[in-house]
């Protein structure tokens, strides 16, 4: 398989660093990251920076990771409903997995993800921590 090109990730840096979303100017639906056409048919979006607060809608702990994360297992990933309405998938950390529940409130934090190879670019993004 190819080594990952840094530019693939760079394109999304501003969305990921700021947890930036897009709000449809017609129906007000919100999305995390790029959404080409809203189901309402509109192509115009305004940028919104999410507060980073949300609730867990589904969660799991991954024990067998893909290549980029194989040394980081086990780690928790959740589907999170942000208070602004968008739903996203992200890692939840700094907690005991056993303490998490559907409905647990979480908050966004800026964290390191992984690097593309030994001398590669280090990628950062948004993870979440619970607010017990």
């Amino acid at each position, binding site marked *: 398989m190819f080594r990952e090109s840094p530019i693939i990730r760079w394109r999304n840096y501003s969305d990921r660093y700021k947890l930036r979303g897009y709000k449809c100017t017609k129906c007000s639906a919100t999305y995390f990251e790029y959404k080409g056409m809203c189901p309402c048919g509109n192509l115009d979006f305004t940028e919104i920076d999410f507060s980073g607060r949300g609730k867990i809608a*589904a969660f799991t702990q991954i024990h067998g990771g893909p*290549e980029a994360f194989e040394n980081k297992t086990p780690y928790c990933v959740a*589907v999170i409903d942000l208070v602004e309405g968008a739903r996203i998938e992200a890692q939840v950390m700094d907690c005991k997995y056993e303490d998490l529940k559907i409905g647990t409130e979480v908050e966004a934090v800026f964290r390191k993800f992984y690097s593309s190879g030994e001398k590669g670019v280090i990628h950062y*993004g948004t993870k979440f921590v619970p607010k017990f």
Partner: protein
Amino acid sequence: MRMKRVDIMKVGVIGIGITKFGEIWEQGLRELLLDAQLRALNDAKIDAKQIDSLFTGNMIAGLASGQLHIGAMAAENLNLNKPSVRVEGACASGSLALRQGIAAIESGSADIVMASGVEKMTDISTEQVTTALMGAGDEELEGFNGLTFPGLYALLASAYMKEYGLKREVLAEVSVKNHFHGARNPYAQYQSEITVDTVLNSTMVADPLTLFDCSPITDGAASIILASEKTAKKMGAEVYITGSGLATDTLSLARRKSLLRLDAGINAAQSAYKQAGITAKDVSFAEVHDCFSIAEIYAVEALGLAKQGEAAQLYTSKQTYFDGKKPVNTSGGLKACGHPVAATGIKQAIEATMQLRGEGGKRQVKGATTGVTYNVGGSGGTACVHVFKKMK
């Protein structure tokens, strides 16, 4: 106003061929595919030159070995220079190849078609397979966050179990039943029975899914030969495809309307049933996509074999065994028969054909007249359903 003519589509199955599924170190991608192709030709008792078009499903060869252009490979295998196309829709690639074959016949551009699926997965490491399979999800919204394929279905399981109170032990019954069937299928990867404890005590992969909730990494190929109704009748075919439904949904789970059902599966089932003029009550058996145990729960609900949220009772009452009221995955499913990703959809079609021909051996469903296959790509981004009928 003239009445609209209602023609039930009928495409005949004139030949089936499948390799043993498993870790087949001595055969590569090309040899596996050829093996299935030759078996199908042998079963159809036709010469390769009679094939007008070929459609071949493959998902990961481009990543795993660098080999693309599988369409030309499939034709070259049989020394043909005919139209031949590779089809990809993640784990639903096989069913998509089948559907393209049906479309070629229905359009009149072909009279006899070969639809195949092939996957060579054991040449690369488990981490590489995990990475490659995750290509079926949303690379940016899911893959970047460390999500894996089992992880996506584990997320679905967590939401479903909370909402409907599905118990962990009941979920395990899916794998127990599929291994029971696998033990009665000579081409299955795992021909051994297991218990609920086997599932509960095996290694955790993505909580709550353990190793025995997950389909394995498998090499294998499967081919099916289709013909127009007229030609198939002349050749004495017993089994016909009368419905084909395909639907799609968002790549990522987060952008779906609900985590509790797969809308693509529901939509594909409804359009296939409508085309075939049947309802869920007419289904004698189903071959469904149990890439993970929870996926079979979603599948039987999408097919209408159980109401939304009520699939558990089919498993506690053991109705999904081959001799039960609603047999599901008599092949052993993806769990026990194995899951050579793009070959799975064709394998399902072959199992349906064998059951309707009465070639199911120790897992034969008695009096089967109508079978359905349900094949899913990704976590539900693609779903493809076919209806098979026995006709005399």
